[in-house]
């Protein structure tokens, strides 16, 4: 199909608008990045310039590594995120399999029960969650966070995964049963068949867990269980006037997420645009 002359101008205008908005979306992040590698005077004198031989400095990063316990915060965030994702994977696929595969009394009702959590924010139950966590002696532990994030991630995971599990051909499972496979084996066999959906659900849950401030602040503010989001928040509040350190810690906290995003953006975007919002 040929492009009409009038639509060339339209196309140029569309690109111009998109470029302008992309610049607006990226410039704050870029600004932080370039200034985190500059010495203090240059940050204020010429904030828009790239660091050069004269203005280059890593003083901020030295402060962050010297004062903050960032490596251990990173490790905590990693354990919480991976732990919650693992539990969402195990419990989510198992429940989705049961709902999709077996006709038992209350199947629909149970599906609805598990779906309620999609629309109700778990934060509204925070006071009781805190009491529960304290009564189980789990406050200031990573377990508290892992369990809460699992509970809040499960509703959407079960909902999406059971839709995909219903599409796995029956013949395949029945053939395995004829060969003497147990129900557990049949379940395990369907997992690779819905791998793309699982990937989407995992990436979809990963970012909000990594970025959450609310539950680390309330359930696990202790030094040993602090996540990187909470650590950055407190560090930034404390060193608000040390601009080098602030910019460096912003850069450090953003980098892992940006790397993960670059690696997984396809799954994330697929998740946003397909099953996750049906």
């Amino acid at each position: 199909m040929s492009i009409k002359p009038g639509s060339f101008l339209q196309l140029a205008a569309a690109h111009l608008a998109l470029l302008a908005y992309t610049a607006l979306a990226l410039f704050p992040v870029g600004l932080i990045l370039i200034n985190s590698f500059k010495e203090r005077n240059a940050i204020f004198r010429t904030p828009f310039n790239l660091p050069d031989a004269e203005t280059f400095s890593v003083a901020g990063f030295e402060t962050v590594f010297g004062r903050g316990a960032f490596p251990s915060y990173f490790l905590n965030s990693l354990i919480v995120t991976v732990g919650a994702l693992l539990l969402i994977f195990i419990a989510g696929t198992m429940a989705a399999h049961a709902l999709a595969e077996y006709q038992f009394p209350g199947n629909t009702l149970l599906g609805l029960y598990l779906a309620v959590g999609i629309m109700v924010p778990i934060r509204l139950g925070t006071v009781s969650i805190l009491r529960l966590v304290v009564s189980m002696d789990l406050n200031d532990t990573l377990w508290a966070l892992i369990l809460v994030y699992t509970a809040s991630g499960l509703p959407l995971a079960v909902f999406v995964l059971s839709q995909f599990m219903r599409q796995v051909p029956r013949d395949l499972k029945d053939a395995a049963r004829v060969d003497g496979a147990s129900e557990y084996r049949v379940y395990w066999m369907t997992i690779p068949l819905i791998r793309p959906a699982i990937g989407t659900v995992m990436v979809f849950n990963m970012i909000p867990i990594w970025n959450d401030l609310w539950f680390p602040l309330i359930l696990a503010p202790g030094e040993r269980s602090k996540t990187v989001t909470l650590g950055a928040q407190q560090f930034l509040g404390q060193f608000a006037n040390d601009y080098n350190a602030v910019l460096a810690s912003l850069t450090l906290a953003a980098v892992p997420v940006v790397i993960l995003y670059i690696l997984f953006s396809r799954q994330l975007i697929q998740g946003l645009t397909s099953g996750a919002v049906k």
Partner: protein
Amino acid sequence: MPASKRKSFPWHIVVFLAPAVIIYTLFMIYPLIDSLRLSLYTVEQQGGPEVFVGLGNYQRLFTDPFWQPQITRAVGNTFEFFLIHMFVQNPLALLLASLLSSRFIVGRSIYRTLIFTPSVLSVVLIGFIWQLILSPVFGRALFAQIGIKLPPLLGQAETALPVLSLVSVWQWVGVPMMLFLAALIAIPDELIEAARVDGATGVGVFWRIKLPLIMPTVGIVAVLTFVGNFNAFDLIYTTQGALGAPDYSTDLLGTLFYRTFFGVQLQLPNPTMGTAVAGVMFVIIFTGVLIYLFTWQRRLLRNTVEL
């Protein structure tokens, strides 16, 4: 049911369901219900037993001279925060999505990946980045370089909330953009082609063909915006603190909830009043979701049936 089938109880179904049902019930459903129950109780003296007061906490929240201004202000501010998202973020997202959905746009996936980037960063980082950019020290130097005298936008009661709402719009616009884009791409080309043959212009096609077809997505985006913004907390807490500075002008239901049950500075923690604030949030969110289910979805269903 024949006896032969009944004798082997399907234990595997229980095993498959148990982990999810137990974790979800214990850490989500039970706390939500227990929290609503707690909102009907009060503690008369510090450390004393919890006494049933019915709707007393709610009555106090809306009539007591200490609580009443706080809750009404927080509800008002939260509505303002939500409405700015509804009427700035979502139209902007729709505009970007329709630009991206054009068949002739080269580099669609690059644009959408880049525009989505702020949404993957934590609100804490976004909050500090913008606080820095708008700050009287760094921000003034920054804007001076391009010849603009920057007013203290986050320090003035009139501008702080709208500006922070726009920061949040800036961060999250990628999410509705993706949803709109997926819906727009799914529209069959033949439909648009047919309208064009009938002489419809680009704008006409958008209003008469595309928009009606993506109405289900518009509804989902609206309800997600509503639920998401009625428990907003992180951005305000990060940039303005738990008191919604300056002078409570940015205080949302989320910050009021946190402050009430957790305590801050001179205000003692009050878990039962906190659960009452959560109860108010719950009622508002629940009402919003119900309105969506019973008006929007029902209308859409009726339209599909008529087709």
